[in-house]
């Protein structure tokens, strides 16, 4: 396994990747939407770095999760907040980590209940592979393969830091 990058490096990679993708697609005024909880911390920082003046949106996907029929409703659901109209907008959707892809499916289903965006770009700090759905990030700060005992955990929001945890620790 390659070593986990530090948080600043991960953010740099993600920022640079998004900048070139936005330039390549000719997207001038995108809006950011973070997926709760880690995704909104990252979206907050990226908004400043990319110079996006519109406040970022916050998405809580609890009502769209596909494991409702297995574990019930998340008791700590909080309201989603999108402080702009998504109709026809270019959206950068941000999460801290992508693995199965199920969170992103839920997030996109939710987004479409607000309107029809022009496009969605997916950015994550880390791509852990282990996909269960055909969903891929457009930009990831780092791709990483973990062994069965390892987990990554983003802590924040201030300071934002990333930890590699070994099971049993």
């Amino acid at each position, binding site marked *: 396994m390659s070593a986990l990058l530090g948080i600043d490096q991960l953010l740099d990679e993600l920022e640079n990747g998004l900048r070139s993708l936005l330039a390549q697609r000719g997207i001038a005024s995108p809006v950011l939407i973070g997926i709760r909880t880690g995704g909104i911390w990252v979206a907050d920082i990226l908004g400043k770095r990319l110079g996006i003046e519109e406040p970022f949106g916050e998405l*809580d996907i*609890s*009502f*769209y999760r596909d494991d*409702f*029929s*297995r*574990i*019930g*409703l998340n*008791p*700590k*659901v*909080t*309201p*989603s*907040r999108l402080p702009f109209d998504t109709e026809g907008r270019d959206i950068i959707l941000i999460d801290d980590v992508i693995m199965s892809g199920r969170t992103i499916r839920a997030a996109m*289903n939710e987004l*479409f*209940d*607000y*309107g029809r965006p022009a496009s969605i770009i997916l950015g994550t700090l880390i791509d852990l592979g282990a996909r269960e759905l055909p969903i891929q990030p457009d930009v990831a700060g780092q791709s990483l393969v973990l062994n069965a005992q390892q987990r990554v955990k983003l802590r924040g929001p201030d300071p934002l830091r990333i930890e590699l945890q070994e099971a049993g620790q």
Partner: protein
Amino acid sequence: MTANAASPNHLQLTREGQLRHFLTLDGLGRELLTDILDTADSFIEVGERTIKKVPLLRGRTVVNLFFEPSTRTRSTFELAAKRLSADVLNLDINTSATSKGESLSDTLLNLEAMASDMFVVRHAQSGAPHFIAQSVTPGVAIINAGDGRHAHPTQAMLDMLTIRQHKGGFEGLKVAIVGDILHSRVARSQIRALNELGAEQVRVVAPGTLLPRDVESLGCTVEYDMAKGMKGVDVVIMLRLQNERMEGALLPSEREFYRLYGLSQEKLALAHPDCIVMHPGPINRGVEIESAVADGPQSVILNQVTNGIAIRMAVMSMAMGGQLAERQKKMSKLTERGLV
């Protein structure tokens, strides 16, 4: 606490403490009540979207089983279920098979055979939803939409949501509940919720003939004089005079009642200047409340209706979720033992 206060909880909650039926507020702790309010807050946001629907109950069937007439409660339950993407069947029992002699148990068996996942029950008999929850097939959730004089827990919770929105919380709040306490299942559930959520004082204000005998034991003080009862309160909840439940002469006249206990602008002026005015509806203008107050700046009566949809979405999705999680858990255990 009454001796059987633990029993509804045994029925209402899973082993993990998730809601699986919603029958009464008795025995439900502050944390769970707060979870219901927080979940409802998220559903309010859903109600403001272009598409006011979430997929939680997609493919599930909800039956509104109303043995008593209701407009507001039934229509908000129906809308709540539809916004959760459920299929909804409304059964007005007065026009259904029970009037042809079918028993309650037979009606339920037939409805269960239609693969219903949830019954929303209103019944004139106290304890009817509890009875149904005990006998229904495992996996089917029962929601109490008002039973006799016992409880109306979704109404009380939508009132708590309304109070929290306007007052920020419950600490230090003084609340007056005015009018026909005797016949009111709403008042019982409200007193219970306000105490559990930490309100400083709950006063009931009514003539002695419209108070149940043991009313203080519910967790409130009693005031017979409206002027004293209104003094300094942050919230006043007016109750509807339930003429259809009156047996014998409990009141001299509606006019006399209005003079003594109706909420006029003069009486409202005795409350805290930021006092909000609530009423579960339907309102009898000029009987419990002056029109100028019902339509005035301190009235939050229409907010209550909007909040009713969000609260009902919250308890329906939480109870269905609890049932599904429980079923999943049983299935995993059977699989582990190699029985499936």
